[in-house]
């Protein structure tokens, strides 16, 4: 009875893993095929194995400018997020002050807001301020989601550090 049950579970697990991996496998599979092969035949493994697709995405201007843009957004975003989120997380984890819980919750709600809600005003706002189509605009817009999350996570970490360590550090100067 126990053995049988165990096998059923393993079977289910394998079925799910298959379901989970197949789409990814298919994507990887196709990435090594030539365009003609994708469109003309149906094969489970690349017949004419090629790195050409990867070469394209790393050398073609239109592709790698995308990575550069992403990197720019991420860097701007990260710098701003960390500089504003660190002190805030410290404040939340070390002090209690008037309305701290409400502010914390309010930050969290921003993380949960449907992005579509903000789409319209962002468009208007950035056009007005003249930031439209710049890297800063995208980075700023994304702050909305990254800052609350950063504060939230950092707060968790800082609360994990016992206050005694702070105090010892003070004593040591």
């Amino acid at each position, binding site marked *: 009875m126990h053995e049988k049950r165990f096998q059923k579970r393993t079977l289910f697990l394998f079925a799910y893993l298959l379901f989970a991996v197949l789409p990814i496998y298919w994507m990887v599979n196709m990435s090594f095929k030539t365009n003609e092969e994708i469109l003309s035949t149906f094969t489970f493994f690349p017949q004419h194995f090629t790195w050409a697709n990867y070469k394209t995405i790393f050398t073609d201007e239109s592709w790698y400018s995308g990575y550069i843009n992403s990197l720019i957004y991420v860097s701007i975003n990260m710098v701003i997020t960390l500089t504003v989120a660190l002190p805030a997380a410290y404040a939340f984890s070390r002090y209690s002050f008037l309305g701290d819980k409400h502010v914390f919750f309010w930050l969290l709600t921003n993380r949960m*807001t449907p992005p579509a809600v903000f*789409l319209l005003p962002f468009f208007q706002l950035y056009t007005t301020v003249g930031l439209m189509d710049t890297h800063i605009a995208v980075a700023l817009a994304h702050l909305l989601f990254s800052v609350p999350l950063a504060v939230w996570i950092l707060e968790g970490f800082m609360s994990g550090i016992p206050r005694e360590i702070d105090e010892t550090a003070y004593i040591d100067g």
Partner: protein
Amino acid sequence: MSTTTKPVNQKAWFLILPVIICVAFSAILPLMTVVNYSVQDIISPERRVFVGTEWFVQIMRDEELHAALLRQITFSLAVLAVEIPLGILLALSMPAQGWKSSAVLVVVALSLLIPWNVVGTIWQIYGRADIGLMGRMLQEAGIEYSYTGNATQAWLTVLLMDVWHWTPLVALLAFAGLRSIPDAYYQAARIDGASKLAVFRYIQLPKMRGVLMIAVLLRFMDSFMIYTEPFVLTGGGPGNATTFLSQYLTTKAVGQFDLGPAAAFSLIYFFIILLLCFILYNWMQRVGTVSDEGAGHA
């Protein structure tokens, strides 16, 4: 946040001031703009008329919105109905220890790491009848499958895609919940001669209650805001079959430039999510403090 021995210090406000300013620029200002739009009829940048609640009334009576809302709720409920049991089942059947456990965890978590628009692209190709594995298989099995032509199939494909993408989250949460049950519980159950089902019903399920509640709320909220994946996969079609709330809103705001109604709807949408978020937040606070008092009724 533990409220135990934290000193009261109002100066801490200065530390969170940067965050407030930042978020004010990217959240409050836009939101105020939305409120502004929702009560005005903007004819041109210079001419705007205060219309009161007209947009709200109009949007509430909008048939398309009703359809999209209904579709959205059905979808979110379907997501929960599939992903939660599947996630629990998956967590139960995952090996508990050793390298097998780690390997399975990695494979299971794989789909969580994929960016949303890529998920859409993967499934778009995967489901195509000519070059996609799934589409081709279904075709071979004699099913006339097309996510671009058939409304039901498009809807099911989006659901399947979401299940593929997010069940791991539920599974990982449930798995974490299962790991936290001490072995003594199982030993006691074995001595009592409890069946597998009884163990699940009276030990595992109550112990997982906290994390499952979080999973339910997270999945509900996220699926309620789903935008990218259906947009990439079906673009809301065929017809309106997979136009969910976010997409409906985007079409209205940017596609048709119906600023007033779109803004009014944005606010309603926002409040729905806010309510859910409030429930979630309070739940998570309580899970941290209250132990599983409801062991009998899960």
